[in-house]
């Protein structure tokens, strides 16, 4: 896939079983976000295709959910948490129809599941970083998605917020929803993903976490930065 004048990422070929949680792992600038945006359809592909169940992703309509990086959100935009979550229902509503009581209830329920009950009417800038992430996760929930794309959801998020997030990801997986998550968090990869896709401007490795998340593959993905990561305890357990 091409982004600007440079090929941001090339030769990614992976077949992901439904209901799996795939960690996208690689250094900064390795193409994690680009891959997610390409899957989401917001970055054009220079070639190749992305399909879900044999169908192009476009045909899934509103059932691909995307949780953006915090820096990509305009927090000064005049919307409340409830407004943001209800955006998840827009596509199902269709043109010329406005969210009503049903949409409102679905949005409030999703916020409550993630521990944000009673805060729906607040402006989005009035939440902590972790809570803001949960609002967008709630939006993904009301989309009734088949595929969820999470872009660096754990940047600057505390342990408790992380736990809420991981719980919801597990709920998605149990319901057969496929989750792609770009992450820096190498220590949590083993406990939270079923598959990993290692990237460094091209695909380095893809497979089940148990067999693919190895020191050799990490070294290949992170190159010179490997010294930093060799202190991660995971390495000792790896075969």
């Amino acid at each position, binding site marked *: 896939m091409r982004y*600007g*004048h440079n090929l941001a990422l090339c030769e990614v070929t992976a077949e992901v079983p439904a209901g799996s949680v795939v960690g996208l792992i690689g250094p900064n600038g390795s193409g994690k976000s680009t891959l997610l*945006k390409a899957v*989401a*359809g*917001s970055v054009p592909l220079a070639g190749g295709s992305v399909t879900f169940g044999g169908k192009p992703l*476009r045909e899934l*309509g*509103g059932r*691909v*959910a*995307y949780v*953006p990086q915090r820096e*990509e*959100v*305009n*927090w*000064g*935009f*005049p*919307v*409340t948490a409830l*407004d*943001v979550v209800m*955006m998840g229902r*827009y*596509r199902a*509503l269709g*043109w*010329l129809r*406005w*969210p009503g009581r049903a949409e409102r209830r679905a949005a409030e329920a999703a916020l409550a599941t993630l521990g944000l009950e009673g805060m729906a009417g607040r*402006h989005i*800038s*009035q*939440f*902590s*970083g*972790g*809570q*803001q992430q949960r609002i967008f996760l709630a939006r993904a929930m009301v989309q009734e998605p088949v595929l969820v*794309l999470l872009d660096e959801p754990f940047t*600057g*998020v*505390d342990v*408790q*917020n992380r736990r809420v997030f991981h719980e919801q990801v597990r709920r998605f997986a149990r319901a057969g929803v496929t989750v792609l998550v770009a992450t820096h968090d190498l220590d949590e990869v083993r406990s939270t993903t079923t598959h990993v896709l290692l990237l460094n401007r091209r695909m380095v490795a893809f497979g089940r976490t148990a067999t693919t998340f190895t020191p050799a593959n990490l070294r290949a993905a992170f190159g010179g930065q490997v010294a930093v990561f060799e202190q991660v305890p995971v390495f000792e357990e790896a075969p």
Partner: protein
Amino acid sequence: MSWFTEPLQYGFMQRAMLEVVIIGALCGLVGCFVVVRGLAFIGDALAHAVFPGVVLSYIAGQSILVGAFGFGTLTALGIGLLSRSRRVSEDTAIGVIFAAFFALGVVILSRQGGFRRDLGSLLFGNILGISTQDVVVTAVIAGVVGLIVAALLKEFTLAAFDPVMARTLGYPVFGLDLLLLLLVSATIVVSLQTVGNILVLALIVTPAAAARLLTDRLLRMIGLSMGIAAAAGVSGLYVSYHAGTAAGATVVLCATVLFLAALVFAPNHGLLAGVMHRRHGRHHAHHYHPAGEEHGGGQAR
């Protein structure tokens, strides 16, 4: 009492009042999207770029709306396409091309006799000379723009707030952006007669910026913005009638005064509210940061 009623005995003042209320509502509505999308610079470029069209139709003895619409549409499409290609930095290209358009308008006009007088009325508007037909045309266009925005409010909001998600959901984001630019362009064109080329952007941006300070909800912001712009229009006309000042510029200054009032007195985002909160030692996550920076990077509050 006669301060209010006296101006209204003149037909030209009645038409001007009606016109500023319609224009105010229209600018207030479209301005909200200009403000939340950060399109002020593009709006300014549009206002300048329609100038040759205004001049040409003026010289041809046509309503200035005709030429302005032509150029406005071309410019909106041009900016839309420009923003799509990554070849040129968008703001640079806009700065180069659309200032040139404006200069072209001035050059064409300078070939005509009576240059100074004409230039004045084109640049600063001539609301007191507005005809009934102009008011009708303005009302029709404002109605059409209002209907389109109302019909697509959900989609415009989503595309403005989260274009990546909008694309993921399959919405034609580029088409929506282009349509928004066309609506801004139409708004500028019909407002030209009221406040003129130079000041039209103020009528679009200022009331919406004031409204944003007063509320955190888009729908309320739109309502307030429309009200503020119409109020600025009406009060500006009264002041200009009694003080003998230029109507368009007075309207703009009234909008500025309302904006400053909002800046100081707004319940949550105002300067006074900020001072009060600090004095009471309350940490309030309420201050609006227009640049989109946010607070509480990770720590629960």
